[in-house]
């Protein structure tokens, strides 16, 4: 089933004759909808709720871009992608962007026909074990079994970690996250490994979260960033600056609640530029003057998005994802 979609995507690369080279913006505008690749279900990042509405940090980034480009945060067609489809779907032009817990790596950026835009979540790979197992460090997994998802950097990091620590770890590799989690739940594996934020997100969905421990060791850097097809610089600018806009909005104290008021009354030149009240900043990347006003009104600033999707439901701390002023790594380039 998934193989067939991969095949289709490969054929799409073959068939679409330079279509996505330029004019993604025109394509989105004429279609009136943004095709945005998301995960098949990771609570907190992108996951359909009981009414079928996609929720999460990744999904909200899709909405913010749709609002900035089309003025309508609802004009998004969410395309669930598996790990091995996520890069191919965007390089083949099947979707205009992918916002799907994808690690920014040199090889993907350089040799796989995609460009990364801006990090929306700084993560690291961790391990979850059953509390009753008594394991307190990933190094104690020698001789044990670890469930992992295929087509991800996770799989490689696990092999690297075992090699570096000189321990034997049996990896059971699954095609989908759901299968890997289920196998861990049926006790097929001693540990489940993926990005620490996702471990937290899975744990909250278990019937007895406290029976599972996330080990303190992080074995990798996982900067998660949305990606676009290589070759359309303007489109890359649009997605990158929309993300900077959301981060800047938090820094400047603009929220979904006060955005209209700020646009009309703020005396801060940074706010005026961002919301298009003085300088038409959207014009720099080919968008309308109200690009950021629409985006913030729809999904809120970065902090609001983080709080709504990750802090409140999953209990995740801001950590590295705090604003630079607060000791984190979230730093918006100047919008001027």
């Amino acid at each position, binding site marked *: 089933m998934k193989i067939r979609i991969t095949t289709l995507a490969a054929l799409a690369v073959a*068939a679409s004759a330079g279509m996505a080279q330029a004019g993604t913006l025109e394509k989105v505008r004429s279609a009136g909808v943004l095709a945005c690749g998301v995960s098949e279900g990771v609570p907190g990042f992108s996951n359909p709720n009981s009414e079928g509405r996609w929720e999460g940090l990744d999904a909200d980034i899709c909405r913010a871009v749709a609002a900035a480009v089309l003025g309508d945060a609802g004009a998004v067609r969410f395309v669930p992608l598996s790990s091995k489809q996520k890069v191919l779907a965007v390089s083949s032009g099947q979707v205009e962007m992918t916002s799907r817990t994808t690690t920014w790596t040199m090889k993907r950026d350089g040799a796989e026909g995609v460009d990364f835009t801006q990090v929306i979540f700084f993560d690291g790979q961790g391990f979850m074990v059953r509390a009753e197992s008594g394991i307190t460090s990933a190094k104690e997994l*020698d001789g044990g079994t670890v469930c992992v998802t*295929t087509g991800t950097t996770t799989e*490689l990091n696990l*092999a690297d970690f075992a090699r570096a620590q000189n321990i034997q770890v*049996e990896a059971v*590799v699954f095609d989908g996250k759901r299968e890997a989690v289920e196998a861990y739940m049926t006790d*097929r594996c001693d540990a489940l490994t993926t990005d620490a934020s996702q471990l937290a997100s899975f744990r909250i969905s278990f019937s007895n979260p406290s029976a599972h421990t996330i080990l303190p060791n992080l074995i990798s850097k996982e900067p998660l960033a949305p990606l676009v097809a290589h070759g359309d610089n303007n489109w890359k600018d649009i997605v990158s600056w929309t993300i900077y806009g959301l981060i800047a909005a938090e820094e400047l104290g603009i929220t979904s609640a006060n955005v209209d008021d700020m646009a009309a009354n703020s005396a801060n030149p940074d706010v005026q530029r961002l919301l298009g009240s003085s300088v038409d900043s959207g014009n720099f990347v080919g968008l309308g003057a109200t690009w950021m006003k629409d985006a913030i009104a729809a999904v809120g600033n970065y902090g609001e998005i983080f709080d709504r999707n990750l802090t409140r439901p999953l209990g995740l701390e801001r950590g590295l994802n705090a604003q630079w002023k607060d000791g984190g790594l979230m730093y918006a380039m100047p919008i001027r």
Partner: protein
Amino acid sequence: MSFKSKTRSTAWGGQSMGAVLVQAAVLGLVLSGVYVLFQNTQANLQDRGIESGFAFLGHEAGLPIGDSLIEYDPTRSYGYAFLVGILNTLLVSAIAIILSTILGILIGVARVSSNWLLAKMAAIYVEALRNIPLLLTLIFVYTVVIGSLPHPRDPISPMDGVYLTKRGVFVPRPVVEDGFQIFLLATVIAAAMAASFWIWARNHKRTTGRSVPGFLGGLALFTAITTLAFFASGSPVGVEVPAYRGLNFAGGLTLKPEFVSLVTGLVLYTAAYIGENVRSGIASVHPGQIEAANALGVSSGIVTRLIMLPQALRVTIPATTNDYASLVKNSSLAVAIGFPDMVSIGGTIIGQNGQAIEIIAMWMAVYLTINLLISVAMNFLNSRVQIVER
């Protein structure tokens, strides 16, 4: 309109010039279409900065593989990792083909049995397994049957050294010790003696008409000699018994849950189809043939072996060829339960390199090769059992 023109034949197997031209034109169109697609793909890949070609197969793979027939570690190349996948696919297919053939024959014979209960149970088996998607059967076996086994800490041990757990089935591994070569030599001699006895028995029957149990006699001879040799050479085969250490069993032979589930699912599913082939083969033999043989007083074993089976096989083999081919292709459902077959490992390589076109071409080439080989072998077998008409 003359009679002559209708029967005129040409150099192209009786086709008219016009038909040949049309076919040539269509072929030309298809080939140029393929060429345009190929050029287009190359240009697109280049525009997007996607590497193409098979050079990546030489790069270090770095990915972990849980189940491997040959020695593997992540420092090996992608090409080697793919080879591990091919071998896993072949292993699963070969074992599943053998087991599903055995089970299929049993099911097929049971379906035509005069025992009402046996026939009904076989019928229910066939209908149930054929009408449930294989994927569901696989997931059921994997999560429910294997998943309900205990943790290695507290295993089910039906006999000494054999442990059933949800981390796999652990059995003792035979280990070769001193004196094994003597035993091996004795085995070869015993096999030769058994074969010569069998050939002698056949000749004896041909020349004198007296039946000597050549096969059974040969088997008895072989068993007796090898057993004697085994003890005479000091029982040169030891066992390595699996033992629980830390988190799992170590030592011995391990059958991973993914492997067991995949083979079980494939066997259960394919046996239902093979059972139907066997049933229809048996049903195709005219009852008069059996009745005639019975009337001559021939023993029922010989009736089955020399009258029923040869005729039933003519119907059974071609249909079973298809089922073997399906089984090989169905083994790709391994991705759903985490068995590292060729498709699963290839998928990982796509995820890490984005070189889907190359991997998909390799998948197709391997499946095509395996299935063509199966087809050739089965066609050979089929040609042996067809009635020779004069």
